[in-house]
C-alpha cells in the first residue's frame, strides 16, 4: 500500500501565452478566411463542392478560435473532453434527425 502524497501537483501554465502580435496575426488569418468564404459565395459553382468548401472553411475558423483564442490547445485535456463531447453529440444526434427528415436527399 503506497503512501499517498500530500503535495499534489499543481497544473501550472508552463507555456507562454501568444503575444499580442500573434493574436492579431491569428485574427488576420480569420479575416482572410472569411473573405474567402464571401468570395466563394459569388463564384458560380455546383452546390456540392461549394457546400463542402464552405464547410471546410467554417471548420477551420471554428477550430482556430477554439484552439487559440479559447486556448483549448494548451489547456487541460479535461476541457477538451467536456466540450468536444457536447459538440460531437450535438452533431451526431442532429444529423440523424435531419437524415430522418431527408433534409440532405431530396426534401423540399
Amino acid at each position: 500500500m503506497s503512501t499517498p502524497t500530500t503535495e499534489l501537483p499543481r497544473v501550472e501554465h508552463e507555456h507562454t501565452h501568444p503575444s499580442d502580435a500573434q493574436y492579431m496575426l491569428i485574427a488576420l488569418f480569420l479575416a482572410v478566411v472569411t473573405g474567402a468564404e464571401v468570395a466563394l459565395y459569388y463564384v458560380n459553382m455546383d452546390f456540392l463542392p461549394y457546400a463542402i468548401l464552405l464547410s471546410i472553411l467554417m471548420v477551420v475558423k471554428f477550430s482556430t478560435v477554439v484552439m487559440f483564442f479559447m486556448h483549448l490547445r494548451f489547456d487541460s485535456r479535461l476541457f477538451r473532453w467536456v466540450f468536444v463531447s457536447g459538440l460531437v453529440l450535438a452533431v451526431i444526434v442532429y444529423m440523424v434527425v435531419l437524415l430522418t427528415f431527408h433534409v440532405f436527399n431530396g426534401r423540399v
Partner: protein
Amino acid sequence: MAIIEAPEQTGPLALPGGPSVPAVPAMGVFARPGQTKGWRSWVTSVDHKRVGVMYGTAAIFFFIIGGIEALLIRLQLAHPNGTVLNAAQYNQVFTMHGITMIFLVVMPLGAALMNYLMPLQIGARDVAFPRLNAFSFWCFLFGGLFLNTSWFLGGAPDGGWFAYAPNTNPVFSPSHGMDFYALGLIITGIASSVGAINLIVTVINLRAPGMTLFKMPVFTWMGFVTQLLIVFAMPVITVALFLLLFDRIFGANFFEVRAGADPLLWQHLFWIFGHPEVYILILPAFGVVSEIIPVFSRKPIFGYPFMVFSGIAIGFMGWGVWAHHMFASGVGPFSVAAFSVSTMFIAVPTGVKILNWVATMYGGKLRFTVAMKFAVGLVAMFTIGGLSGVTHAVSPSDLQQTDTYYIVAHFHYVIFGGALLGFFGGMYFWWPKVFGYLLSERLGNWHFWLILIGMNLTFGPMHILGLEGQPRRTYTYKPGYGYDVWNLIETIGAFVIALSILVFLYNIVKSRAVAKRDNLAVGPDPWDARGIEWMIPSPAPSHNYNPVPVITHLDDFWHRKYGEDERGRPVRIAETAEVVQDGDATGVHLPSPSYWPIVIAAGLPVVAYGIIYNIGLALVGAFIVLVGVYGLGLEPSTDPDAGHGPAEHHDETPPPAPAEPDKAEEVAPA
C-alpha cells in the same frame, strides 16, 4: 482573524496575497445571513446536505400530489363509462400526473440523494458551487409550484407529459395550461442543468486525495453519468419548449402544418431529451441498489468495473435509441429498423447490472433489512419492466403494443418498481446518516409489502389489458370489452399503494417522535457499511470531514475496519470507534449562507407569469433575476467576516482586542 495585519485582509475581494492589493471596502447593502437555526437558516443555507434534504422533502410533497392525481385516474377508470372526471379534466389529471411524477418526484428524489451523498462519498466538504446548488433547489421548487398554479388559473396542461404538437397549439389546447407546461419545465430545466454542471465539476475536481475515479462508489459513478446526461439532454427539450411557446404566444410556425411545418420535429426534439431522461430517472436508483446490496450481503459489489462501464455504456447508448418512441409515427422503415436494433442492444448493459447484483448476493451473508428488501424489489420489478421493454424494442410487436396499456405497464414497472423502490430503499438506508435515528423496521416492512403487492396489483394487469387492446390516454372505456374486472383490480391496487405511502409517512413521523422521546442517537455506522460517508457522525456534521480523508481503497471505510484472512474472509482489524471521525470542526472554513440563490429563483416564475399575462410583470421578474445575479456574483463565496467554524482556535495570533475595553467588562458572563 488577525487585525494586526494590514487592513486589506478585510473586504469582499480580499485575497490571501500580499500587501500589493489595495484596501477594498465591503459593498453589500444587506448583512450576510448568519443564522444557524430556524427557517431562515434553511432558506439561506448553501450546505449540500440541507439542499438534499429540501429536495427530498419537496419531492415527497409533490409525490402526494401526483399520487392523488393517480388515484383520480384510477377512480375514473375503475368502471366503464366512468363519471368521476370528464374528458377535459381527465386530460389534465393524467398530464399532470406524468409531469409531476417524472419532473417533480423521481428527478428530485434522485437529486436529493445525489446532492446529499456525492460530496460525502468523494470525501469533499461540499459541492463546487454551493450557492448555485441552493439556487438549483429553489428554482426547481418554484418551477414546480408555478406549474401547479395552473390548476387555479384556467386549467392545467392537458396535452400529456410528452405534449405532442400540433395537439398542443392554442386551437386544441386553448387554456394557458400548455404555456404553464412550457415555462414551468424551462424553469425546472434550468435548475437541473445548473445542478448538473455543479455535480460534474464536483466529481472531477473535489475528490479527496487518493480517490481516483475507479475508487469512487458505484452510486457516485451512476450519479456522475446521470449529471452528464442531464447537462446534454436538457438543452434539447429547452429548444422544443421554446418552439412550442413561441408557436403559442407569437403565432410562430414551428408546428403549424398548414404553414409547411412538420409535427415530427417536436417528437424528435422531445424524445432526444426523453430517452436520456429515463436513464436520468433510473441510474441513481441503480446506484442506490449497488450500495445497499453489498452492505447487506457482506460482500463487495460483484464486478465493480463492469458496474461502472455498464453505467457509462447506458449513458452513451441512451442517446441512440430515442426514435423507438416514434415507431408508429411515420419516420419510415429504415429509421424504425435502425432504432429497433439499437434499442435491443441497450438491454445488454442493464442485464449486466442485474446479473452483478444477483452475483453479489450469491454466497453472501444476507440481512433482509427494509432497505435490502427495497433493493431486491428493484432488481425483481425492474427485470419485469425491462423484459416488457425488450418486447417494445422489436418494432413489429411494438406496433401492437404502442398506445395501449402494455406500454403503461412497462414504464410503471421500471419507474415505480425500479426508480421509486430503489429510492425508498435509499431513504431507509441513509436515513440514520441524515437524521441521526433509524426508521422503524417494523413499519418499514408494512410499507414494503403493501407497496410491492399494491404495485403488482395496479400495473401487472395492465400488460393483459394492453394486449387485449385497451388504449392509453383515454378517459373511459365501454363495457363489454373484457376490461372491467382488471381495471377494478388495478384501482384497488392503487389504493393499496396509497395505504403503503401513508404507512411510510407515519413511519417518518413516529420514528422521529420515538427518537426524540427516548433520546436515541444512532452512531456513525449502524449498518456496518462500506462507504466513507459512514465514517462521520450521524447526523453528518455540517463540515463533513475533518481531516479530509486520504483514500487508498474502493470501499475505503470497510478496509479500515476489516482486513482479510488467508481464505479471503473479512477479519476485523479495528473497532468502528477507532476509525470514525469525531466531528471536530476546528479550523474549517465553510462556504457562507446567502440570500441570493432564493432571490434569483423567485424572479423566474415572475418572468414566467409575465410572459403569460403581462409583459410588465416579466420585466419586473427579469429585474429581480438581474439584481440577484449581480448580488451573487459580487458577493464572495465565503464571508471574510465569518468565523472559522464552531471551534475557533487561534494558536499564533492573539484574539482581536475589543474596541472598547469597558464594554468587554460589561458583558462579562453573569
